[in-house]
């Protein structure tokens, strides 16, 4: 009896030691699974906390530094105050933010595209962004009333390879075409942008001026051009399936939630790691800046497992 017990114990010890050795040798560390098959799916989610914790310290800082976002912000001189607010608030968290305008304006520091047509303007802006990307590999396209939380965007694409084509946002369907809604922000990887710029040369598939009798919106034209180059839209959502890209303001989403889920308004409403809200006026943007980057309850720790530093030259975050 005793010898059986002791052989059991010996077995346990051996098993435990074996496990430790395996883990030490790193063969047990799952690392980061290949992401190439994932972007064929239509729903794009960020890494889970468990997966994040499996990254080593070196991998973590490497990956955090590599994810850099070039923000393409489309403005017009008529809405100067929106440009000024975006400049003063969320766009400081982009690694580079460039404003693209339809015409020049003295007060605006923007790339003057001298173009009134929306689609042609977007094409020119994206071409400019591609040519001036430097080392940046992720591109975020915003309208003037959009507020983006760039850290959450970085988290979404954290270990995704920008040399794969990614086209992410809030996906809508129009007939057979799945496109990313312009209003709630569009994310493109470097490869997607590269293919798009290549497709610009093809006037039959991706014309600069639409010849059709009715005007097709820019978001759909973009989706079409990308589709021809083999890039498909993916819906950005969190682990619970909540939308990360929103075309409404927080206030509107809360009001909707108060009607639909009166017992659980905030939980049901919006994601903790939402990336965009849109339709925001400048004062709502200033409040959001405070609400997102400053206001918090003392003693709550989110255990985020990675670090993004605040930008230089900013005083409201």
């Amino acid at each position, binding site marked *: 009896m005793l*010898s*059986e*017990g002791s*052989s059991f*114990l*010996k*077995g*346990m*010890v*051996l*098993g*435990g*030691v*074996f*496990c*430790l050795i395996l*883990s*030490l040798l*790193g063969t047990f*560390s799952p690392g980061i699974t290949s992401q190439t098959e994932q972007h064929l799916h239509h729903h794009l989610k960020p890494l889970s906390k468990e997966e994040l*914790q499996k990254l*080593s310290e070196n991998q973590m800082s490497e990956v*955090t530094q590599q994810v850099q976002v070039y923000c393409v912000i489309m403005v017009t001189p008529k809405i100067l105050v929106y440009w000024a607010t975006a400049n003063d608030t969320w766009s400081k968290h982009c690694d580079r933010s460039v404003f693209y305008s339809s015409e020049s304006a003295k007060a605006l520091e923007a790339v003057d595209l001298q173009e009134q047509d929306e689609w042609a303007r977007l094409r020119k802006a994206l071409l400019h962004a591609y040519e001036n990307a430097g080392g940046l590999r992720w591109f975020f396209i915003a309208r003037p009333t959009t507020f983006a939380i760039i*850290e*959450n965007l*970085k988290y979404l694409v954290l270990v995704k390879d920008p040399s794969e084509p990614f086209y992410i946002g809030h996906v809508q369907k129009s007939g057979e075409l799945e496109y990313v809604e312009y209003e709630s922000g569009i994310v493109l990887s470097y490869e997607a942008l590269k293919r798009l710029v290549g497709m610009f040369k093809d006037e039959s598939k991706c014309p600069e001026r639409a010849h059709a009798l009715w005007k097709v919106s820019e978001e759909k034209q973009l989706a079409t051009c990308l589709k021809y180059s083999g890039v498909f839209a993916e819906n950005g959502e969190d682990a619970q399936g909540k939308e990360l890209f929103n075309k409404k303001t*927080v*206030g509107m989403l*809360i*009001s909707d939630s*108060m009607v639909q889920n009166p017992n659980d*308004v*905030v939980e049901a409403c*919006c*994601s*903790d*790691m939402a990336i965009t809200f849109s339709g925001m006026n400048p004062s*709502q943007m*200033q409040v959001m*800046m*405070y*609400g*997102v*980057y*400053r*206001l*918090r*309850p*003392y*003693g*709550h*720790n989110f*255990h985020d*497992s990675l*670090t*993004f*530093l*605040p930008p230089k030259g900013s*005083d*409201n975050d």
Partner: protein
Amino acid sequence: MGQRLFICGVFLGFSLVLQFLKTGFQIVGEDQNGVYTGYNVSAWRTENKLLLIPVFTFSDNLAKQLSRKVRVLCWVMTAPQYLKTRTQHVRATWAQHCNAVLYMSSETSDFPTVGLNVSEGRDQLYWKTIRALQYIHTHHLHTADWFLKADDDTFVVMENLRRFLCRQDTEQPVYFGHRFRVFIKQGYMSGGAGYVLSREALRRFIQGFSSGRCTHTSSVEDLALGQCMETMGVKAGDSRDEEQREAFNPFRPDQHLLNPGTKKPTFEYSYYPKIRGPGCCSDFAISFHYIRPEQMYELQYYTYHLHPFGYKYRFNPQCNFFSNSITNYSINF
């Protein structure tokens, strides 16, 4: 038989260690203040393949610990007609973070509300305050350490209130809030932004009325309360944060954060220099006023839910509320 046991043992040992490595464990200790601090060994990283380094992340029980150490009773001034339109949203949001909450009204109800012996109306507000404080003094003097008054359109972040109160002594005659400089020498606290009384301050207020030194001087309840406080030697304290930014705010966030924000004259009443724009308000803000129900949920979302993942906040005051030494240990799996 022995061999089978051996093999079972191998598997069992292997899976136990694997489980341990995956889920980690917690070390919980009690320091000399009787406060729990915890460490989670939640992940392991191999920098160098020969070393196994457990990673300690501080358990997020700090807010819970604080709520055990600094108990606050919230009393919300409301009225029967506002229960469904305003007070229920207070109950659904920030009131849940109070140690205890009382809804003060003219009528008792199943909400539940405490029915005070008053009628409704602006001219009755100070009577309501007096009766409410008498009720609290009679029934709840030791339910909590501090007593916070709020309106049904005030939004409060209780954790930040506790962060501030942790450094204060409730046996001192002191009260805090958004300090106004007008009308009273030492100033008084804005009612809408919420004010919080120490236990001694509450005692003195009640003594004031029972001795006749304090009377119903006006229906402007925050001003009248401020007069009684000054009469009874209760100090009007400074609740600004380490960067001299206000924590109790008598208006909505947009009215403070924008420059120019609001044009209301009471904005100029402040005791301390008024700042408009982002410098107005502490990161660890305690309250805002004139908050409609939709905005309550919005503020709840901004405070407790939406956050920039991984962002290192600029304002990180080094506050050592608890000593770092741990005296007793226990290990939880």
